[in-house]
């Protein structure tokens, strides 16, 4: 099997870009790209990925020059389904089931594909998760309904504001503020008893679960740069949520 180096470079970087953008760990991106390039029988393969960019270099033939490219990743989203699909494509490519053209087609499809779950289902799930956790943190059965509504409001606000606000943490701040306000309002008009638990439930959909887990994983596999930057992202998100809810409480309670 011999492929043109340029094709392999494009396919590898496309795969890496999708994975990193939609919330894969750094070590997984590096390992996948190195495996794919090696499977295409290139030597001297090196990949370096951080949270915001990927470098990939390899050698085509001994007397030829080495190839080296980078991509910059600006957006970071959470869509673990796309990570899984890219993982599957790379696995098939490495074991020789599909050719490089098939791999590129599949990756482009994945990149273009819409979200796996529709937006209304995500908001509904946010409500269910919020009300469930408000019960687990000590709320009563009667608190399920206001927690559901408040969590749904915060999920709605974070998704809608991220379309307009470029600053990442502003949307989370606003969402925490709106969710907390809804919770306080609902308790004020007599729906729900334990205010604290309802507010906690309304914040649960905003928890930065993906960066938090990836930060631990990256730090432990030796990607210190990526791990620290992901940890900083998770910390900033949590601080934005905390200050949003602090503002609500100082104003309304």
């Amino acid at each position: 099997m011999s492929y043109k180096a340029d094709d392999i470079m494009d396919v590898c970087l496309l795969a890496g870009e999708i994975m990193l953008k939609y919330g894969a760990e750094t070590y997984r991106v590096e390992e996948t790209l190195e495996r794919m390039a090696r499977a295409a029988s290139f030597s001297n393969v090196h990949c370096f990925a951080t949270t915001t960019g990927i470098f990939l270099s390899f050698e085509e033939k001994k007397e030829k020059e080495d190839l080296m490219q980078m991509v910059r990743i600006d957006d970071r989203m959470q869509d673990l389904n796309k990570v899984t699909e890219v993982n599957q494509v790379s696995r098939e490519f490495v074991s020789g089931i599909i050719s490089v053209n098939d791999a590129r087609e599949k990756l482009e499809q994945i990149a273009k594909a819409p979200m796996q779950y529709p937006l209304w289902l995500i908001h509904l799930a946010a409500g269910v998760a919020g009300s469930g956790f408000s019960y687990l943190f000590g709320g009563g059965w009667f608190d399920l309904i206001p927690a559901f509504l408040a969590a749904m409001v915060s999920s709605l606000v974070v998704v809608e504001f991220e379309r307009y606000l470029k600053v990442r943490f502003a949307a989370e701040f606003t969402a925490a503020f709106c969710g907390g306000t809804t919770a306080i309002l609902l308790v004020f008009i007599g729906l729900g008893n334990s205010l604290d638990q309802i507010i906690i439930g309304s914040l649960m959909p905003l928890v930065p679960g993906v960066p938090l887990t990836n930060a631990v994983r990256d730090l432990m596999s030796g990607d210190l740069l990526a791990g620290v930057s992901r940890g900083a992202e998770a910390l900033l998100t949590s601080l934005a949520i905390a200050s949003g809810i602090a503002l609500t409480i100082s104003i309304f309670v």
Partner: protein
Amino acid sequence: MEVIAQLLITFIATVAFGIIFSVPKRALLIGGAIGMVTWGVLQGGLYFGASSVFSTAVASLTAAAAAHFLARRIRIPVTTLAIPGILPLVPGSRAYFTMLSFVEGDYLRGLEFGVETMLRAGAIAAGLVFALAIFSYGKGIGHRYEPNR
């Protein structure tokens, strides 16, 4: 009865969180089941008198180990199972009371809650790391010296 209701709610909430993170469909229910087991282990630890931090660490280890094992079986990235699995352990209520105490000016109580939040988060991380260490056994090459050379 109370325990069964809690486990059921944990399952539903974890599956809902899987939808928020867009976990693939075939991993949704498995992630929910792991979350349920995690909550069960946490409550079991507390019931037998272990401290909350220790129970969290053990529950996190259980969740991460189950995630590693099952992710290998159905061939998907570990994170798709590990993230829903550890979510029931997130110290949301401690973090909230930390913030509440600081807003009310009760700094001492806030620090108390804050330390517990940090310790629990650290316990979750420790569980993840231990599971990783167990499941990558035999892949080490030495960190300080190169004994095999």
